[in-house]
């Protein structure tokens, strides 16, 4: 039986590793990968809360299931946008996209 604190500390560490990656990386795909790390940390938390604090219920389970589905859709749309950005600006970093600013 793993103590519930271990799951929380692990997911908090994973979350902030993802935040660090999101702030430091400038490549669009690398930023998207960091977002996936953050989403996974949140999913671990949902599952662990449900399993270890409320074992009779299934809300966290289904929340994680729907979150997996939504993040798959999100990454498909984001990849489509990134491909379009690359085709238009010939670059894959966020600094290249400045048309909306002025």
């Amino acid at each position: 039986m793993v103590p519930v604190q271990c799951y929380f500390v692990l997911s908090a560490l994973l979350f902030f590793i993802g935040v660090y990656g999101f702030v430091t990386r400038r490549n669009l795909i690398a930023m998207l990968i960091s977002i996936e790390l953050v989403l996974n940390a949140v999913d671990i938390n949902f599952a662990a809360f449900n399993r270890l604090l409320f074992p009779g219920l299934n809300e966290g389970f289904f929340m994680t299931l729907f979150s997996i589905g939504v993040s798959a859709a999100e990454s498909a749309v984001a990849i489509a946008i990134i491909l379009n950005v690359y085709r238009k600006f010939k670059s894959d970093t966020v600094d290249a996209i400045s048309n909306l600013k002025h």
Partner: protein
Amino acid sequence: MANIIMFCILAVVILGSAVMCVTTKRIMRAATFMLFVLFGVAGLYFLLDYTYLGAAQISVYAGGVTMIYIFAIQLVSKRTLQGMVEKIKCSRAIGAALLSVVGLATVAFVFLKNEFMCRACEVVDAEVPIRTIGHALVGSEKYQYVLPFEFISIFLLACIIGALVVSRKVEEE
């Protein structure tokens, strides 16, 4: 005891791969390390006896999302494959590390000082039966999820169409 050993192995795999994923300079390697993180998280679900969730994680994330990323990396540019060196500004890295450490300290403090830890109960190692999951997914009673289930299917359809429209090659007039 076996559970704790498995948890330690998975934690080392997840955290090590995640750190490598955000610090490596090559995008292809970052995607590969993300795959390891996703497998580790699936292992955590198996450890929690959520086998259905682990299977969904492997098939959707490791099978689908990672493939999308790898195809996008291959399509976006040739030089990413040959080891594009991405410059990470030192000041930005220090700021991000500071932000992460402060946030981590806050979150860990809130988690570990909280009262709900004491309510953590001993759970018998029994997985959620698939019949329960199926009934809850397509039932419309209380604590059943037919509406989000249908919403997800419409949402996925909308996303497929949206992705096709966005990434379609525009004809030059």
